[in-house]
């Protein structure tokens, strides 16, 4: 019966919004402008919706990890809680400490959100849904998400609070250190797929995801990326920058109202970006689960639309991150550095070396097809 299925081999033609803008510009400039505006509005809408959903999900998931119910009052099972909270934060007084560096204090959260927003540009949600598919996409996200730490540093420093400064300094040291490991693990995938362009990385996983297709090194790189990315976005067990039991609230101690909401927004957007990075690089992004030449299996998997695949993978990644957060205690600041420089970085280097050998020798699953 299944043999009678039509050949569903999808060509996966990738068109990004920016491509559409440029191709339509010659024919109809109005359409191009519409495309561009739509992209901007969509990104902003998407940004706020994602953050709200993530906050709600996090609260619900955390609650059930802890034998609680979580938000239950606003809407059915508290589904509108995030909206209520956002409204509350927007309406609250925006307090700037008297001794603070006012301009910097106001600018810092904006910088954080800006970095997260920029990174969203390159993320491939599905073959037809990415704002821009640049040829250095991976590098772009790595670089831009590194900007966020500047916002944290500024916020902590300009608050003129010792706890904030401590938190900011911790964040600076931590993010810069863990950036190394994250990049090393990303390089493994870049090496296997032979490109930094997200569409090509995803299409290179046509025969299988890099997490298992690159024997062992893929998995190790994935684990390193998991740890390093958790550290990069300051989530438990690496939330030293915030460290509420040590530094009261770390770098955002002196923030309130909308500016606090901006930091909050940036935090959850970063979670989303890191998760989609992980999903794209190691779990095939929007690419359905394919196993080599098992055509029938691959065809069945293709029935699920690529956008859904992407959403599922990202949710899995995000859930993992939440699971960590609500299970593990926080590391101490020196142990954090020890973990990076003594454990993750050496392993990452060795892993990269092995990956290089494997790539050159073609010793991985289904090498001929990518």
């Amino acid at each position, binding site marked *: 019966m299944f043999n009678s299925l039509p050949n569903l081999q999808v060509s996966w033609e990738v068109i990004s919004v920016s491509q559409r803008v440029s191709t339509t510009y010659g024919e109809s400039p109005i359409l191009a402008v519409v495309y561009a505006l739509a992209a901007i509005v969509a990104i902003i809408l998407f940004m706020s919706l994602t953050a709200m959903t993530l906050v709600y999900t996090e609260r619900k998931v955390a609650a059930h990890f802890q*034998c609680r119910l979580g938000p239950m009052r606003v809407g059915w099972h508290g589904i509108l809680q995030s909206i209520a909270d956002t409204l509350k934060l927007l309406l609250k007084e925006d307090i700037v400490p008297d001794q603070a560096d006012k301009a910097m204090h106001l600018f810092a959260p904006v910088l954080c959100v800006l970095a997260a927003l920029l990174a969203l540009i390159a993320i491939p949600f599905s073959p037809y849904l990415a704002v821009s598919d640049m040829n250095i996409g991976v590098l772009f996200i790595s670089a831009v998400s590194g900007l966020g730490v500047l916002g944290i540093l500024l916020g902590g420093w300009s608050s003129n609070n010792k706890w904030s400064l401590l938190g900011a300094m911790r964040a600076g040291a931590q993010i810069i250190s863990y950036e190394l490991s994250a990049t090393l693990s990303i390089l493994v995938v870049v090496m296997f797929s032979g490109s930094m362009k997200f569409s090509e990385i995803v299409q290179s996983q046509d025969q299988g995801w890099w997490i298992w297709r690159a024997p062992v090194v893929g998995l190790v790189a994935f684990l390193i990326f998991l740890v390093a990315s958790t550290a990069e976005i300051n989530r438990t067990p690496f939330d030293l920058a915030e460290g509420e039991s040590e530094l009261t609230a770390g770098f955002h101690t002196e923030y309130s109202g909308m500016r606090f909401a901006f930091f909050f927004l940036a935090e959850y957007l970063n979670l989303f970006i890191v998760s989609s990075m992980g999903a794209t690089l190691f779990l095939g992004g929007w690419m359905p689960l394919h196993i080599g030449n098992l055509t029938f299996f691959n065809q069945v998997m293709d029935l699920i639309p690529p956008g859904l695949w992407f959403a599922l993978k990202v949710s899995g990644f995000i859930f993992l991150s939440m699971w960590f957060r609500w299970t593990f*205690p926080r590391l*101490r600041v020196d142990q954090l550095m020890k973990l990076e420089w003594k454990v993750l970085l050496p392993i990452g280097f060795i892993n990269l070396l092995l990956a290089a050998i494997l790539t050159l020798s073609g010793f991985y699953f289904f090498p001929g097809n990518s």
Partner: protein
Amino acid sequence: MVSSEMASSVLPNSLSHTRAGIHISSLDERILKGQTDSKERADRETTQEYFVNMGPQHPSTHGVLRLVLRMDGETVRDVIPVLGYVHRGMEKKAEYVGYRQQVHFTDRLDYLSAVMGNWAMSSAIEKAMKTELNDRIETIRTIVAELTRIQSHQLWWGVLGMDLGAFTPFLYGFRDREKITAIFEETMGGRLTMNYIQPGGLMFDIHPDFVANVKKFISYFKPLIEEYEELFGGNVIVQERLKNVGILDAKSAISLGVTGPILRASGVAHDLRKLEPYGVYAKTKFNVPVGTVGDCWDRYQVRMQEMRESISIIEQLIDNVPEGKHMVMKFGAKIRVPEGVYYSQMETARGIFGIFIASDGSEKPYRMHFRTPNFNNLWAITQMAAGGRVGDLVAILSSIDIVVPDIDR
């Protein structure tokens, strides 16, 4: 010793901004006197130390405790506890009310071992008056005291988790503590401050369901201790955070007058339940867990083990609570303690709770002093925390398991 005025004139301004006087560390003192060697001075010149207030509003000072920290980057050089934010003049108040009214004050000192505080006060009065109690009273007192110890340690376990950055243990600890509070509520009519143990007996007899509920709790909680260990104690991050942190050796622990699990973790098997048995502890079999190193990890282990021992004590007692009256003194009668001075001690969840009574033979005590365990225990932090990180300080403070009203009285 350099006076603080002199220090503030010599040292940078940042030193003098705390309102309470600053305890000058030995290094400062030696620098001021010009007794430092070149290396120390070079250290001092390249890094600027600063003071930071931890508390009175800080999530991990467990209430309104203020610690002034002298820090060098992330490293804590000195801890100066500043007390008195919840000082309520308990000892002064105690001089104005009768002996029976004293008992409920002890609820409000160490509220996490409220029943043991009640017991300490009642037994101090009973000892002074030489009142004989029956076995039922003693057995029930022992059982509820051990239940109190378990719930106190449950809370401590949860709070330790939260202080180390894991929020989930906190709620698990509270969830399981709730079972004990429900038992207490049923029998004693209160959840936190019960005023249950009275001079001469108990406020009420135990509830008819008490025995069954305690048994139910024990069978519920026994496997959970292992789960606690697996979730938290076995976690590699927790072990890294607690091992070799905040070491307190036996000699300075004794000299600092530290008692309770902290003293035992330092390797001194000092437990009044064993050494000077009261209640029916003499009839029960239990071990006194002792640590070897005296670090936070030992304190963790000692308390976890104590929960298991407490369960075993309750198991030995709960099946045969003797019959008898629950009160041997008349409630309305005024209590007059014979003239003299009396000091009596009891082992609460945090250490020795001592009650000193000076009586002039009247209805009210002439002087009442509460020797609270946390007051002495807290000062151990000045020795334990120096040289560690902020994260260590939080772990140490949590492993001391302070209750601030007990310190400030």
